């Protein structure tokens, strides 16, 4: 089954790690350079972990695995994240 969800599904899991909403941040893909909101990524999972792929080139942008007492966040496919911060 490869029906994907999208990056909105990352909001809860990432809220365990970050104090800001990362899904509205703008990420840039290492592979193709496409920039867009994390919410627009294609997300597969939830087991064994969440895998978020670029909607442009399908490369892995972000992976998140939650274990007992630990979260592993792999951002190897992300050049940068531009996070909007309220002043």
């Amino acid at each position, binding site marked *: 089954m490869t029906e994907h*969800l999208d990056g909105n599904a990352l909001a809860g899991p990432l809220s365990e790690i970050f104090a800001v909403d990362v899904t509205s941040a703008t990420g840039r893909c290492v592979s193709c350079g496409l920039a867009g909101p994390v919410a627009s990524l294609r997300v597969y999972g939830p087991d064994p972990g969440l895998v978020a792929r670029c909607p442009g080139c399908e490369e892995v942008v972000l992976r998140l695995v939650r274990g007992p007492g630990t979260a592993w966040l792999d951002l190897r496919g992300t050049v940068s994240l531009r996070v909007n911060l309220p002043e």
Partner: protein
Amino acid sequence: MRRLTWRPAELVAAAAETASARTLRFRVPGWPGHLAGQHVDVRLTAEDGYTAQRSYSMAAPADGDLVELTVETVTDGEVSPYLVEELRVGDQVELRGPVGGWFVWRPESTAPVLLVGGGSGIVPLMSMIRARRQAGSRAPFRLLYSLRDPDRRYYADELRRPDPGLDVTYLYTRSAPEHVSRPARRIMLDDLAEGGWPASFEPDCYVCGPTGFVEAAADLLLALGHAPERIRTERFGPTGG
């Protein structure tokens, strides 16, 4: 804002929305409030300690420590059948939220809004409609609600009542009521051209539903000239549940 934790939530009211969907109202002590379109994670814990969690959109804007969800049963799902068929008033679950800052509508926004919902994708859009009414907003809203047949309608009575500045169009995909001239079919360009806003009005577009529906509707909006940055999407997967 700080890192979110799980909070106990007690079911205080519930009502059937359709044969397979139920609206659940929880009291969540210390709830910080939320924006229309945000969702929550719901966690169930079995007696043996096994846990399962799913994400659900909230159906109504913030109202003190009350949180309202509408949940559609997913056949063989781990969480939704329990929420729709088993959970009783007075029972407790755990909620984490609000989460999501992308698929949201803020009452201070005055831009025209086009809501395009497929099936249970109506839920976060209904939260926006209710938030608009609650805030006395004059932002003009149009809702295109795609669904299989009339028995699948959520919020039927409420959407039938006049709500100045809100236009509602139903798009039936399998069987339409007799008085409806549009044949039952999937969403098409004409539907968005007639029931939506011209791209030149620069509406904020919110599209929510199953993946295939969202991608079809978003592509049609792009074809009509809407700017990609004005189209916000949220996909509900058939997986999980």
